[in-house]
């Protein structure tokens, strides 16, 4: 009945029925829209944060890009410490079907402990390190295992390409890339740079997809450090020192080479040495930078300071004579002895034969206050200020007792570091002016901005130029036949120096032991010193005297270092062998068949021969005009990249450019003679400071 009524109503009033249907549908759609709107509100507003982070977790990746640790280079730009990215092996333990066989296989290939690895695999749910910083060969071996869940990631590793060279000065870097010792620790903030993060989208296959351009990342890299050390001089010093320590069967040794005019430390060597690329297994005391950290009783090398101070005060002259008590002088309950007894000696001979009694009497004349003051003025008892960790200060106690005053006059009862001692002699060599010893020449940001720059720094005038020169001149007698160090004498250069043989304190017995510290410190050439070279041998067993165990090492360093620095010889030898061969008259026919023996150089003072002068002229001519087909490399440092390229092309050379901006460095060096068409590598930096050309 009702149905019939409805049909009847539809037929009678079709417009109204349509309106009902429309409204009904409208309501349905409105409800649906409201539902959609509500859901949208819930997803977009209420749960927005949660859902956004869920989504980002799936497709966004924050890549952590480790900063490249800055290089450490020597004064000529030769790298001493460099960082290179190497692979580290990790594993997702959840993907390993059988952890034990996998751990065994990995441990075998990587040379690690299986049990340790298993423990790490059990601890880590989705990530565990297998081995960090592995070699390319180890990477290949692990890849060959084809284990599921094993991955590789790149990490920067520190390398020291010169191996043991200056290892104690440079220090070490740990697996986490933090400096542990030496310069690596002292300049951690500058060297390390800043770790950069960069977001990247990952697609379904896990591939990286950058949606933003790559930012210039130079700024986050670590700064590089230029040292005052010279790689070649460092090598010479370490080689000679190692040989001297081995020959003397000594416990350890130290060598320091310093430029007295500027205070620059050119070499700091310590023995025993260690290879910082593989420090595991090296003895603990090999890591110590002895020249900087260890304060020791220096012995007779201190006599030169006593004499210089007394000369400066006008209390003595080189000819002032002192009663040397025939080698034994009693002060209270103590007796001061000389190795060789002398009735009396003048100041020059006190230094030459290293008389303890003579030095003690000069100190007595000088007085306690003036002696301590003189030592302080020479820089003892205060840190040299190199900025290295654990730098030693040394102690100069005030000598209340007479015997303490006497002992301090010959370098016992006080302590100093090797660097302080070298700097003190540097003051004598530099006409009485103490220069601050320094090690870091420059700290340069990755974009070429100089953050720290070292300069020669005058600390104070210690003694008058006259007193300093007189002392240096008197010390020349030490290397003469009658002196304590004839083994330090050089054929071509005048040497001024002093030996030291100090007794070592026994920390247990709290007295002096029978162990010694033998040393020699020399200034070369004596007429205008360019180098101060100190060699200290700790606990020598064969001989105990500085003139016997340390002086030969000094000679070895100086013989090679002075020609390397192009220091003109103090005296010229009779016939330089190479020149003599070129200009010698032809031998008689009868002698022609015999091989002519190379003439042995003689240590005699002679004026340059005509042949030598001719040789000078010839070499001059050669060096001024490059041979045909060769070209001299122009100095391009500091100029713009474009200009540098056109200059090189104009000089028939092929430019190879790295980076952008101005030329920061070039290889080969400016002025080198190279064959036409040679490649010249230019390292450009965007913000380069004005380079001195």
């Amino acid at each position, binding site marked *: 009945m009702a149905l019939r009524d409805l049909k009847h109503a539809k037929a009678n009033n079709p417009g109204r029925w349509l309106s009902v249907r429309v409204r009904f549908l409208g309501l349905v759609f409105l409800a649906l829209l409201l539902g959609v709107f509500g859901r949208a509100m819930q997803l977009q507003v209420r749960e927005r944060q949660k859902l956004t982070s869920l989504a980002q977790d799936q497709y966004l990746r924050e890549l952590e890009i480790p900063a490249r640790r800055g290089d450490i280079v020597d004064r000529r730009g030769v*790298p001493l410490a460099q960082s290179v990215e190497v692979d580290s092996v990790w594993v997702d333990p959840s993907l390993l079907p059988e952890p034990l066989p996998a751990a065994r296989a990995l441990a075998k290939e990587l040379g690690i402990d299986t049990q340790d690895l298993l423990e790490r695999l059990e601890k880590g749910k989705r990530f565990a390190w297998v081995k960090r910083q592995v070699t390319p060969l180890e990477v290949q071996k692990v890849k060959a295992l084809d284990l599921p869940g094993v991955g590789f990631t790149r990490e920067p590793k520190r390398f020291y390409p010169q191996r043991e060279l200056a290892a104690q000065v440079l220090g070490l870097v740990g697996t986490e890339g933090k400096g542990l010792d030496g310069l690596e620790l002292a300049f951690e903030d500058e060297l390390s740079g800043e770790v950069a993060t960069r977001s*990247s989208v990952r697609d379904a296959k896990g591939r990286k*997809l950058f*949606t933003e*351009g790559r930012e210039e990342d130079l700024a986050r890299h670590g700064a590089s450090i230029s040292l005052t050390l010279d790689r070649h001089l460092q*090598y010479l010093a370490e080689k000679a020192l190692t040989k001297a320590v081995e020959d003397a069967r000594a416990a350890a040794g130290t060598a320091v080479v310093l430029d007295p005019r500027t205070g620059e430390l050119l070499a700091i060597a310590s023995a025993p040495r260690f290879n910082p690329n593989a420090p595991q297994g090296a003895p603990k005391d090999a890591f110590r930078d002895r020249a900087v950290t260890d304060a020791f009783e220096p012995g007779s090398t201190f006599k030169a300071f006593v004499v210089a101070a007394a000369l400066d005060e006008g209390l003595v002259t080189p000819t002032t004579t002192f009663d040397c008590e025939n080698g034994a002088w009693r002060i209270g309950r103590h007796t001061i002895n000389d190795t060789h007894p002398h009735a009396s000696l003048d100041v020059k001979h006190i230094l030459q034969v290293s008389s303890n009694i003579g030095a003690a009497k000069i100190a007595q004349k000088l007085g306690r206050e003036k002696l301590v003051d003189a030592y302080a003025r020479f820089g003892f008892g205060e840190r040299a200020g190199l900025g290295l960790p654990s730098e030693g200060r040394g102690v100069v106690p005030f000598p209340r007792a007479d015997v303490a005053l006497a002992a301090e006059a010959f370098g016992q009862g006080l302590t100093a570091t090797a660097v302080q001692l070298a700097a003190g002699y540097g003051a004598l060599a530099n006409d009485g002016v103490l220069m601050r010893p320094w090690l870091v020449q420059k700290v340069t940001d990755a974009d070429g901005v100089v953050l720290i720059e070292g300069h020669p720094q005058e600390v104070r005038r210690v003694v008058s130029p006259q007193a300093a020169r007189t002392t240096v001149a008197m010390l020349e007698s030490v290397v003469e036949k009658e002196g304590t160090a004839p083994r330090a004498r050089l054929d071509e250069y005048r040497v001024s120096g002093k030996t030291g043989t100090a007794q070592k304190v026994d920390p247990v017995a709290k007295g002096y032991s029978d162990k010694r510290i033998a040393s020699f410190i020399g200034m070369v050439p004596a007429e205008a010193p360019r180098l101060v070279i100190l060699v200290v041998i700790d606990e020598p067993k064969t001989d105990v005297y500085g003139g016997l165990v340390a002086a030969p090492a000094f000679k070895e360093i100086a013989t090679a270092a002075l020609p390397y620095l192009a220091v003109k010889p103090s005296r010229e030898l009779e016939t*330089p062998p*190479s020149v003599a061969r070129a200009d010698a008259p032809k031998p008689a026919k009868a002698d022609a068949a015999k091989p002519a023996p190379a003439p042995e150089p003689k240590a005699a003072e002679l004026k340059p021969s005509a042949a030598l002068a001719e040789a000078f002229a010839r070499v001059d001519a050669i060096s001024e005009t490059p041979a045909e087909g060769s070209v001299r490399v122009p100095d391009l440092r500091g100029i713009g990249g474009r200009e540098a390229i056109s200059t090189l092309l104009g000089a028939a050379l092929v430019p190879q450019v790295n980076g952008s901006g101005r030329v920061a460095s070039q290889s080969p060096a400016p002025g080198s003679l190279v064959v036409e068409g040679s490649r010249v590598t230019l390292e450009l930096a965007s913000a380069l400071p004005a380079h001195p050309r």
Partner: protein
Amino acid sequence: MSVLVESKRGVSFSVILLELLPAALLVMLFAGVGIVHVTSRVLVVKVGYELSRLDQENATLERDRDRLKLELATMKSPARLESLARAELGLDAPKPGAIVHLKK
């Protein structure tokens, strides 16, 4: 019913087209914008992949450069050069007097 048929016969085809034109243009505009947008997104993704590939290549090249620099420095270490010079070339350190100092 007959009134409606008559009025429809009176509307020409061109009038209908004119009335539909704005809607058609709007649809075309939307389609055009959509195509441009999709194309640009595809390009961005393509360039993104290219960028990440080049980034990877750059990292590899930088790594190779660092390795080569390290190798060069290792090869030029004085201890190695000295042993090579002595063993293979028979060289020795110059004796005193063998070095000629040039006049300035």
